[in-house]
């Protein structure tokens, strides 16, 4: 059984995944497609797309309507080059870590186990984009 708070947290995580899919698309657009960062961006894009699909299934299985993706998202700052693309990737993973930590708190069972793994992935992926390590990723997020 998925509780109301777990569904709410899954919806928040899904919304963050929509932003991630959009944001990695933007990042990929400004990088040299043959460069190593572009390869990593494409890999991250696929991970987040799969996670988005999985969260939609979770929400539907609780008889709720998944929060839809918006046509576009206002980014914190324009993404004009490689540095901006990497900064956007860091921001994406940071926000995903926050929502996945909240999902861990609100869920149980398999969904919680998945969220535990997603939180670890967001923390290490953020690190790979240059984020500073923290004692409690997703909870003591960098501001």
């Amino acid at each position: 059984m998925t509780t109301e708070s777990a569904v709410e947290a899954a919806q928040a995580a899904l919304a963050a995944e929509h932003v991630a899919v959009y944001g990695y698309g933007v990042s990929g657009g400004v990088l040299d497609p043959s460069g190593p960062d572009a390869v990593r961006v494409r890999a991250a894009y696929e991970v987040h797309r799969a996670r988005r699909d999985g969260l939609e299934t979770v929400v539907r299985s609780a008889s709720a309507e998944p929060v839809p993706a918006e046509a576009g998202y206002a980014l914190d700052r324009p993404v004009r080059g490689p540095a901006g693309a990497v900064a956007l990737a860091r921001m994406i993973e940071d926000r995903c870590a926050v929502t996945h930590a909240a999902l861990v708190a609100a869920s149980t069972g398999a969904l919680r186990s998945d969220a535990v793994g997603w939180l670890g992935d967001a923390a290490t992926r953020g690190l790979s984009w240059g984020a500073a390590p923290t004692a409690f990723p997703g909870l003591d997020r960098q501001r």
Partner: protein
Amino acid sequence: MPPTTVSRRWLLVVAAGAAAAAATGCAGTSAGPSEQAPAVAPGDLDRARRAAADAAELVAVVAGAERRHPELQPLLAGLGSRHRTHVEVFTPEGEVVAPPGPGRVSVPRSRRATLRVLRAREQRAAAAARRAAADAGGGELAAALASCAACLAQHVRLLSAALADTGTGRS
């Protein structure tokens, strides 16, 4: 055993995360500080104690590695600091987590071997924290343990990168 005051430190950590989530428009957690410490789910106090003990052991191992290999201090200082934060957060109030005795911490002479030992310890602790997060009765403790596991996974990455930087096996 004397009665134990339930630590609310992990609740405060998770509450800070909930505030961060709210600040970014990410709703979805009911975790937050309450006026009274909630009842602790069966087994959760022991899970927190184990996490604190694992972190205390890592503090000791990292300190031993720093003493033997001062050149690793720039990397290891951060690891040790975060482990100390984990000890503080997961130790129930009124209790003390004793660090392992000096004889229990063995550090290889080789820098690469030391990095490998540290990485293996961080991996084991991360796996234990993930399991504890999955099993925890309380959502707040689960989130704190999962986040601790994520931190330890970051340490594994940092140590792997340091190992790669040390080249082809010379110590």
